């Protein structure tokens, strides 16, 4: 039975706002907002900062002396821009830089504090931002994201690449301190934000299931895939597919690839956009997965863990002599064939560690199959369980070897 997950279209739209301050901060800190087009409330201080930055980068290059830009300077420049009167559409009067809440105040503190260095405007970034067309209002910008994929982000991801599956250390620290100061949702939200690894794929044709789609994904190791499936009469349609890579760089590669005409599933161009927030979604929660420590997962990923497990039977029981047909000589050549292998049994045993996308027959001299999970943690857990000498799985599959295969998506994206 396919679990039906309600599609929260609204959630996706609003995700960038809900996702807390970290992302906004990060983006403004890196000065790449020009590349972003986000639905903005106009109420929050952070959003207004973002909006403020777009025209500045695209039009006013004068103020770009490499100097430390504090929040006050930003505010000053912002009011100046209001006087000149051309950015009113984006940031109405109501969103003048005022610290409306404690949260905002914290953000300001944060901005004028440690991350302020990265607020320096880099010439190359301005060049890059010039490439994006100046767009008068938000709606058009959103439209442009759909059409021109301006949504691609130019965040410096070098830090993240080194430690997949982990948020930026700095930020975790900050949110911890924030949490001690202001217990509540705010800090927790900040931890969850991880804008650069997860994206959402939409626009699938009918009768195309997850494993069909997966074959066309490239870039790198996938951390997890979460489909949202709806029933349309007899047909089942994959409505949305959340796709999360282990590395932000890979995610970005794939995102760029998806905008070319090469990413086609059954004749349809699939739309891909960033989710913004990285809420932990999971089809069927397996409690044991949560017991895995994040450091263990991380170390496994570093040694090449992926969603795909390969199991291979070590003993080769081949009934060469026993089973021969009457016309054996004429129509058959003796080649290894395993008679007593039940795929259902394997599926049952291994699906207790998480939902399986598919099991494929691997090409090997010994009996060998490849198990593809939805989530990398399932594979890590299953392998760990198989390698634990006291486990049931170990006992049952004692004459089987197990290792991580290659994620079919772990191939470079085709360049145009």
């Amino acid at each position: 039975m396919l679990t039906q997950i309600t599609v929260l279209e609204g959630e996706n739209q609003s995700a960038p706002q809900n996702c807390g301050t970290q992302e906004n901060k990060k983006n403004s800190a890196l000065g790449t907002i020009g590349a972003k087009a986000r639905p903005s409330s106009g109420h929050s201080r952070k959003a207004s900062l973002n909006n403020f930055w777009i025209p500045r980068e695209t039009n006013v290059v004068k103020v770009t002396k490499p100097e430390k830009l504090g929040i006050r300077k930003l505010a000053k420049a912002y009011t100046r821009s209001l006087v000149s009167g051309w950015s009113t559409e984006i940031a109405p009067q109501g969103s003048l830089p005022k610290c409306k809440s404690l949260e905002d105040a914290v953000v300001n503190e944060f901005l004028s504090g440690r991350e302020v260095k990265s607020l320096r405007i880099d010439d190359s970034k301005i060049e890059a931002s010039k490439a994006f067309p100046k767009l008068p209002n938000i709606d058009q910008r959103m439209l442009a994201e759909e059409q021109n994929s301006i949504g691609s982000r130019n965040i410096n991801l070098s830090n993240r690449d080194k430690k997949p599956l982990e948020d930026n250390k700095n930020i975790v620290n900050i949110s911890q301190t924030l949490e001690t100061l202001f217990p509540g949702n705010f800090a927790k939200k900040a931890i969850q934000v991880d804008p650069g690894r997860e994206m959402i794929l939409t626009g699938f044709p009918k009768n195309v299931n997850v494993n069909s789609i997966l074959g066309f994904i490239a870039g790198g190791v996938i951390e997890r895939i979460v489909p949202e499936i709806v029933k349309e009469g007899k047909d089942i349609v994959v409505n949305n597919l959340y796709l999360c890579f282990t590395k932000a760089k890979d995610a970005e590669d794939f995102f760029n690839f998806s905008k070319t005409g090469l990413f086609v599933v059954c004749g349809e161009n699939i739309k891909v956009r960033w989710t913004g927030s990285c809420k932990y979604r999971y089809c069927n929660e397996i409690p044991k997965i949560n017991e895995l420590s994040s450091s263990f997962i991380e170390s496994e990923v570093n040694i090449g863990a992926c969603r795909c497990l390969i199991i291979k039977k070590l003993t080769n029981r081949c009934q060469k002599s026993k089973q021969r047909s009457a016309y054996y000589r004429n129509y058959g050549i003796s080649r290894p064939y395993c008679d007593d292998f039940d795929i259902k049994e394997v599926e049952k045993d291994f699906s207790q560690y998480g939902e399986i996308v598919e099991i494929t027959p691997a090409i090997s001299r010994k009996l060998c199959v490849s198990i593809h999970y939805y989530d990398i943690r399932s594979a890590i857990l299953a392998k760990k369980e198989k390698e634990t000498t006291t486990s049931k799985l170990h006992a049952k599959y004692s004459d089987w070897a197990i290792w991580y295969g290659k994620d079919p998506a772990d191939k470079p994206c085709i360049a145009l």
Partner: protein
Amino acid sequence: MVVYNENHETPFSKKGHVIYEKANFFIDSRYEIQRILGKGSYGTVCSAIDKKVKDSTRPSEIAIKKVSNIFTKEVLLKRAVRELRLMRHFKGHKNIVSLIDIDIVYIKPFDGLYCFQELIEYDLARVIQSSVQFSEFHIKSFLYQLLCGLKYIHSAEVIHRDLKPGNVLCTMQGILKICDFGLARGICPSYLRKSTSIITNYVATRWYRAPELILSKRSYSKPVDMWAIGCIFAELYGRRPLFIGNDQLNQITEIIKVLGTPPEEAISKYGSRMAWEFFSPPKPQYQAIPWCDIYAHISNEAADLLEHLICWDISRRYSVEKALDHSFLKSIRDTNNEPSCKQPFDFSFENTETTLPDLKVILQKEVESFRVERSGNKIHS
């Protein structure tokens, strides 16, 4: 008449292209040829590395197929156009090989259509002949994937006409992809010219050729692909081709040895004197051999399916949908993952464009629109 401008290319007028002498390839310098994978009457296939993809740990490997002699023979050019169109039509099915790029070269001896495709480790012929261990699950999965791919092809009213293990690629993880649409063609009646609907019978590699292609002068259709699927299915059990005929007639003899002499009604359906002469006494009469006597490991369900794929009578032969519905595949089937093509394949160009220059124009247009589409822009036609 359309005058085609050849631009008077010289080997050095195509910017950034290099020559690979061993295979007479003339390709973009971003690709570095690794080795020749195969040669055939159609042309040559090489493996190459795309140097534009800068990834030191995972080089981007591709296969380049050069279809040669297309500018001298109309029929070959027509096939090249057809193949290119079909590959574009079937873009994005997991069991059909995908086209990455296309190039066209007019300078001799490098002239031809260059198809850049994903590189896949094995083909099914190699897998079958090697000592790879199979289980019923392997065979089921392979057959299922073949049928999924074929369903997509047939749903576009296209027959492949050259299905054989050599034309099915196989990844290390056992994903099959149908390739080589050089002999495929559309059969959608709305695109057929009204008066003439004769299509050549000399298709398919002999061992996988359906009996109606040999015995009948009548028009054939999708069942010829189902016969070939049956032959591949049997080969997965026997690990060698089922009917190894030395020539056309010997091929029929090989089939008779297994299926037995066909009943009279089946013979009459071929509608040819040749068929009557071939099967009727005094020619030796054969009895059918049960499939379980031929293959030791075959289950009853598999034997039943095989019986409905490899049979004399075309009306009894399963369609791809019926084969997918068979109980043999029930355990691994995912009915939500068997897409059909949205629209039938349009091959009306074959009726209007028949001369070499006309076809050249079409091919050039195809290549150009493919490149536009590939860059992610929509074509407004």
